[in-house]
């Protein structure tokens, strides 16, 4: 059974039709590369999966359940995580709070007052998660905005992985990184596959896509125009689909 299944997903903003009836499936533990020119609808498609955008038509099924009408929080609860290109971190909040944002563990204070955020647990588990990812930050107590770009990227990844996701969508995770940092992100994707986590990797860097993904889907003007196995294609073919020179 497919982990994620999109059927006939349509989305328009005013008069602009961005998604034209997209069909797409992703299996558990699969690493899928999603490529396409600027404006092809990649980000809109991903936000339709996470629930940030509601679809005009079509269905999104996840883990056997129709999630089309669930909100982003509920879909996140089911195991869909997304790492945004701009990382979507709250710069003035500390590292630990960012990792647990939207899912703060609570306890009762003095056994009485409810909904008391368990800050100690947040700090401890955030530190564990960062250690596990092999990331070094000076402290989980410093504001995220004071970290370097690469460090912020790993905080965003840590946030996505802390709650045992089934699907992680990464929007241009390597675009702003140094070569060494790119390697570590690609290694991480490999590690996630080994743990059975599916990944959708959106990237303009075809080298990275070919290295990490066994399947590559090309989006053009809101349509899936190619669904290729890495072993049976090459970069030239993918590029020709992206620019619309193919068929």
């Amino acid at each position, binding site marked *: 059974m497919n982990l994620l299944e999109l059927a006939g997903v349509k989305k328009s903003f005013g008069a602009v039709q961005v998604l034209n009836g997209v069909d797409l499936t992703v299996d558990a533990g699969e690493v899928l590369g999603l490529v396409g020119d600027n404006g092809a609808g990649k980000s809109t498609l991903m936000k339709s999966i*996470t629930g*940030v955008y509601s679809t005009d038509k079509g269905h999104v099924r996840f883990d056997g359940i129709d999630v089309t009408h669930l*909100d*982003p*929080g*509920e*879909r*996140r*609860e089911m195991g869909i995580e*997304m790492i*945004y290109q*701009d990382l*979507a*971190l*709250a*710069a*003035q*909040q500390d590292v630990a*709070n*960012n990792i647990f*944002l*939207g*899912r*703060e563990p*609570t306890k009762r*204070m003095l056994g009485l*007052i409810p*909904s*008391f*955020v368990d*800050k100690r647990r947040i700090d401890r588990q955030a530190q564990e998660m960062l250690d596990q990812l092999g990331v070094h930050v000076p402290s989980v107590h410093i504001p995220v905005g004071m970290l370097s770009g690469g460090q912020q990227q790993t905080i965003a990844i840590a*946030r996505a992985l802390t709650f045992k996701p089934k699907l992680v969508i990464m929007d241009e995770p390597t675009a702003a990184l140094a070569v060494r940092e790119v390697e570590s992100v690609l290694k991480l994707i490999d590690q996630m596959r080994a743990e059975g986590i599916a990944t959708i990797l959106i990237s303009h860097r075809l080298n990275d896509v070919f290295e990490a993904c066994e399947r590559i889907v090309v989006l053009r003007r809101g349509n899936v125009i190619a669904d290729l196995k890495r072993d049976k294609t090459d970069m030239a073919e993918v590029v020709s689909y992206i620019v619309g020179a193919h068929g």
Partner: protein
Amino acid sequence: MLKLLERTHVRPESLAVLVGLAVVMAILSPVTGSGVRVFLTANNFFNIILASATFGILAIGATYVISAAGIDLSLGSVLGLASVSGAALVVTLEWPWYFAIIGSLGAGAAAGAVNGFIITRGHVPAFIVTLGMLGIARGLALIISDGRGIYGLPPEILFLGQARPWGIPTPVFILVAVALVAHYILAHTPFGHHTLALGDNENSARATGINVRRQRMMLYTISGLMAGIAGLIFTARVNTGDPTAGLSYELLAITAAIIGGTNLFGGRGSILGTMIGALIMGVLQNGLNLMAVQAYYQQMAIGAVLIAAVWLDQIRTRGRSLQ
């Protein structure tokens, strides 16, 4: 001590300003018959807190919306609306005394909810909506009261403004209780974390599944509720539902929140800092009163403090980002 300030996000500077200002006011204030500076008497101390209580509670509302990158300019007018709403039910309609509480708090929360509804559903900027509400609430207060004060509230209500259990004015208890609850919610609950994250980066809040619309709606309702509580205290203190109550108090409330360390652009806010900010405003007003400085100059001083506080903050943050 520094650690406590850091944990509660109170700026040491604001505490220093409060102490410094108090020292200056003490030195400049006149001397009583028994040779003590008027500013330093216990009675004057309560005067300061009593005066600060009304806009201190408003400032709590301001802290919530501003730390979520919003603004509420209607606070002072909603205070006035709440004041006459409660008094009208009990005095004019002769309903039981507790309807003064229900009426004030209800009118405040309702005005806040209307703000929140239009901001979140209509996508009208908070600045415009609450500026409009500033006019609407004040006008409504004048209509309800026919432009006159509504005098003569029952003793149960007067207790909330004029009594002094253990020698301490009741509004002080109310302020402390409201501040503690507000601090707990902002600093220690998921709701508080989400408020700061929303003010910090709305995309971040949305991406992590926080219901941004509901969050905003609740924040403006809380802000209105604070104006309702402040209106009730005002009514009780002066034994009048006053349609002009809280005139330009939004200036005091927002200034108190900002000098208390709330980031005008969202993402940072501390109720304890705001309380220090409110005390700074209270000391400033009180000191100038004792020195017999005309009220007109006080308005100017408060406005100048607001601009100076934001200006200094801008210099600091720009300096930091240049590093």
